[in-house]
């Protein structure tokens, strides 16, 4: 009897705790929404959870979701993460979170969480002990290399890999196994940002920081729906506009969004023509003599590259750009094709609006910050449009000072920290590139491997890697922390490729997904604060998190999975660490790659204490603005700016023309298809769709139509529409006058819902320089279903 009563009491206590948690989530949601609508609103009478119960302990972590890098405090009770609040000590979000952040811990506890390893036997996935699965992976890796060569095996990770995850993946595959078949899904979301930085400045990642928002007068969002994709940063922008009288937000986009609604001015342009508009702004700045000549003469040089560069839709596509120095006069002549009046005809943007934008950038009294993310990066000329926005800031000298900032935002929590800084792309090393002898020597020295192990030739970028899997050039692929069977463009080809008989696919994940559906082995992964790790956010901030709760069942960190396999392959010497301190040891080894004032990283002990540290971290001081000697310890030329990434110590302005999209609407396929995200869901929804509040808010994907297109098609809200491209079709409910409204002739579909695989329709065309696909533009036709 007593036992039964106790159990009953426990159940009641648990339900009450759970109930209280849900009520707090409800309260948090309301307060967060109020904060977004009324910046500065205060609810002083809301009691803090810790004060009420005294049972919850709080530990810091970065949020698991987007690239903003909000600091959160995770509330733990009885070994379970039960609550989240914004970390007031984190300068990124100063105590605020978005709806995904507030509900993030619920993603740990979905009912179908993967807790055991599975191996496909006779076509069926069978649960096995994880050690048996790791044995099989090591055996398959070994035999595949022996039979088919070192480049027949690959690893594909993501910007959600922790820094140690990516580091050990690169060390094993590039350093020990000798293949450059290391890629990450960040190729799909920010590769153009990288090549934009590299071609304009010679160094990756933003020169500014989020503090720019507290100084800028003008914000221009370039194809960037920050209200939904970076809501905490957007709130900070709105708060600044409310607090200061001289702040304006200009939304420049191909579709009306919540960002457009909140902006002071919304300017819509035809897809791909942002290239022409950016050039027209530069034309106008020069024509009106708004150039900052002191800055340009001292710190800028002019260049052009190849044109008519293709789209990469064919296998084995290769392209190498070639920079040629030009004079300012030649650049100025190039821009004569881009007068505002000429560009109005190409872009649909009124010449007066182009002149208005130019006047904002050109006014020396205004500080201007430009934000962008997927709209500019997922673009067949993604590198170019990144260059062109830098051109505007460079012509006017509005860069590297508080409030003057061309700011490329990232979408994933460690796209910067892991993929860009650790270098988990085929051509990269933790410091530099595989093509550079000195960089290979450094890597071989730190990794304790023979120099000859590191192949000087890059192999496959992401799209080509999955093409190689389809062709059979790659036979073994290990996919961690990502869901390519939802996210790859032209998806059907790559799913069919992965399913071919002699391919071996390993997937490490936390929930079943369309990618685990094609796996031969599934490894249950520890998620977020179930392991120790670090992320790196959009503003060069490295953020450490401790293991706060235990992973379920046999789930194991992705880092440790790789270490286990490496040791089975005979690399004990390179992977010698113990489970107690492997993250600290890996960090301190990795940090050696970045020694020096340009990229010095904080030591482990400092990272543990703080809610993130910005690099370069030199002599105990973080760097807010790079290339500016007032803030950046790497500046050494004695001038007011030092663009030390390029050999000529100057930032490069590029003459890049407008070229059309790879596929545009025609008589048969007469609509643009644009894809993207919604605020409630993270990427493919594999986590957020298991959070009841978020799932119920947006339970299924939909196709947004312009009301007049919907009327012509004869559909009303909720009716089914068939969308057909040259590659596939999908039928889904219509949304008209919802949160987003596309222009006439365009439809928009969010990609979070695996029930509607919109990427079966998209085109695998990419920017020839960055190799990043364009998910924003292909041609479709519509039918009422």
């Amino acid at each position, binding site marked *: 009897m007593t036992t039964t009563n106790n159990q009953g009491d426990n159940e009641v206590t648990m339900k009450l705790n759970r*109930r209280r948690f*849900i*009520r707090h*989530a*409800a*309260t948090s*949601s*309301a*307060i*967060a*929404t*109020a904060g977004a*609508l*009324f910046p*500065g*609103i*205060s*609810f*002083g*009478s*809301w009691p803090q959870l810790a004060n009420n119960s005294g049972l919850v302990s709080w530990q810091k972590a970065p949020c698991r979701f987007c690239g903003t890098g909000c600091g959160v405090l995770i509330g733990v009770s009885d070994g379970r993460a039960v609550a989240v609040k914004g970390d007031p000590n984190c300068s990124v979000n100063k105590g605020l979170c978005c709806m995904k952040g507030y509900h993030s811990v619920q993603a740990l506890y*979905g*009912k*179908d969480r993967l807790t055991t390893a599975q191996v496909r036997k006779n076509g069926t996935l069978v649960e096995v002990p994880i050690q048996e699965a790791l044995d099989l992976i090591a055996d398959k890796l070994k035999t595949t290399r022996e039979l088919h060569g070192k480049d027949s095996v690959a690893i594909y990770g993501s910007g959600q890999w922790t820094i140690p995850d990516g580091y050990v993946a690169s060390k094993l595959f590039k350093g020990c196994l000798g293949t450059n078949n290391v890629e990450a899904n960040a190729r799909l979301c920010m590769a153009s940002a990288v090549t934009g930085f590299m071609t304009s400045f010679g160094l990756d990642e933003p020169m500014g920081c989020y503090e720019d928002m507290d100084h800028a007068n003008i914000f221009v969002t370039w194809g960037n729906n920050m209200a939904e994709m970076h809501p905490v940063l957007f709130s900070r922008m709105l708060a600044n506009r409310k607090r200061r009288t001289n702040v304006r937000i200009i939304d420049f986009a191909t579709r009306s969004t919540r960002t457009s609604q909140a902006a002071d001015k919304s300017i819509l342009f035809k897809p791909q023509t942002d290239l022409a508009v950016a050039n027209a702004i530069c034309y106008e700045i020069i024509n009106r003599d708004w150039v900052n000549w002191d800055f340009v003469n001292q710190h800028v040089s002019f260049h052009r590259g190849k044109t008519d560069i293709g789209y990469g839709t064919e296998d084995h596509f290769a392209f190498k750009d070639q920079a040629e120095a030009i004079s300012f006069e030649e650049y100025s002549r190039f821009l004569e094709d881009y007068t505002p009046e000429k560009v109005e005809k190409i872009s649909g943007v009124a010449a007066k609006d182009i002149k208005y934008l130019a006047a904002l950038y050109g006014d020396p009294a205004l500080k201007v910050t430009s934000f962008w993310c997927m709209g500019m990066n997922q673009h067949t000329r993604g590198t170019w449009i990144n260059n062109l926005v830098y051109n505007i800031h460079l012509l006017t000298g509005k860069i590297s000072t508080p409030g003057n900032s061309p700011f490329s935002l990232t979408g994933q929590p460690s796209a910067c920290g892991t993929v860009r800084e650790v270098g988990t792309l085929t051509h990269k090393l933790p410091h530099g590139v595989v093509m550079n002898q000195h960089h290979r020597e450094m890597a071989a020295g730190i990794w304790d491997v023979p120099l000859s192990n590191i192949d000087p030739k890059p192999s496959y970028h992401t799209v080509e890697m999955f093409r190689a899997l389809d062709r059979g050039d790659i036979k073994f692929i290990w996919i961690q922390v990502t869901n390519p069977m939802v996210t790859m463009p032209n998806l059907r080809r790559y799913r069919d490729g992965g399913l071919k008989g002699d391919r071996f696919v390993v997937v490490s994940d936390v*929930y*079943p997904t369309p990618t685990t559906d094609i796996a031969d082995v599934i490894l249950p992964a520890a998620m977020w604060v179930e392991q120790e790790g670090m992320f790196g956010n959009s503003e060069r901030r490295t953020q450490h998190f401790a293991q706060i709760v235990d992973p379920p069942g046999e789930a194991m960190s992705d880092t440790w999975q790789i270490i286990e396999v490496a040791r089975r392959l005979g690399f004990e010497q390179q992977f010698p660490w113990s489970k107690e301190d492997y993250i600290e040891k890996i960090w301190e080894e990795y940090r050696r790659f970045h020694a020096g004032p340009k990229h010095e990283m904080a030591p482990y002990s400092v990272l543990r204490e703080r809610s993130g540290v910005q690099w370069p971290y030199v002599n105990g001081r973080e760097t807010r603005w790079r290339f500016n000697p007032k803030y950046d310890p790497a500046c050494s030329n004695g001038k007011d700016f030092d663009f030390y990434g390029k050999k000529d110590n100057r930032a490069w302005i590029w003459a890049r023309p407008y070229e059309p999209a790879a596929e545009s609407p025609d008589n048969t396929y007469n609509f643009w298809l644009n894809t993207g995200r919604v605020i409630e869901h993270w990427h493919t929804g594999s986590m957020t*769709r*298991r*959070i*009841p*509040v978020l*799932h*119920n*808010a947006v*339970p299924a994907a939909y196709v947004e139509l312009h009301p007049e297109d919907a009327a012509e098609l004869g559909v009303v809200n909720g009716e089914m529409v068939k969308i057909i491209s040259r590659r596939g079709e999908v039928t889904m409910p219509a949304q008209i006058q919802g949160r987003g409204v596309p222009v006439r002739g365009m439809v928009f579909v969010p990609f979070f819902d695996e029930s509607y695989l919109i990427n079966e329709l998209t085109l695998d065309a990419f920017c020839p320089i960055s190799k990043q696909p364009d998910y924003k533009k292909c041609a479709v036709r519509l039918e009422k279903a």
Partner: protein
Amino acid sequence: MPVFSYLATPKRGAKTTLCVDLAALPYCEVIPADNQDLVVLITDTPDETKEKELQKRLKSVQSLQSLSLTFGYDDHEQPGR
């Protein structure tokens, strides 16, 4: 056992009255904003019948201008694959 939260906007000058009116209803918790005419309302009813009754009573609150739903949860719904 539904839990909902709302942003409640009072009629002009009726914020204090609205707080009193809402707090008097069963299953309701009220958090007024300190510096805006806005009130957060959290409802936590034991079952659907009580929820429907409460919804009816909310509609009759005279000091209430509008309610915007910000959160909804029901124990019976368990999303997954």
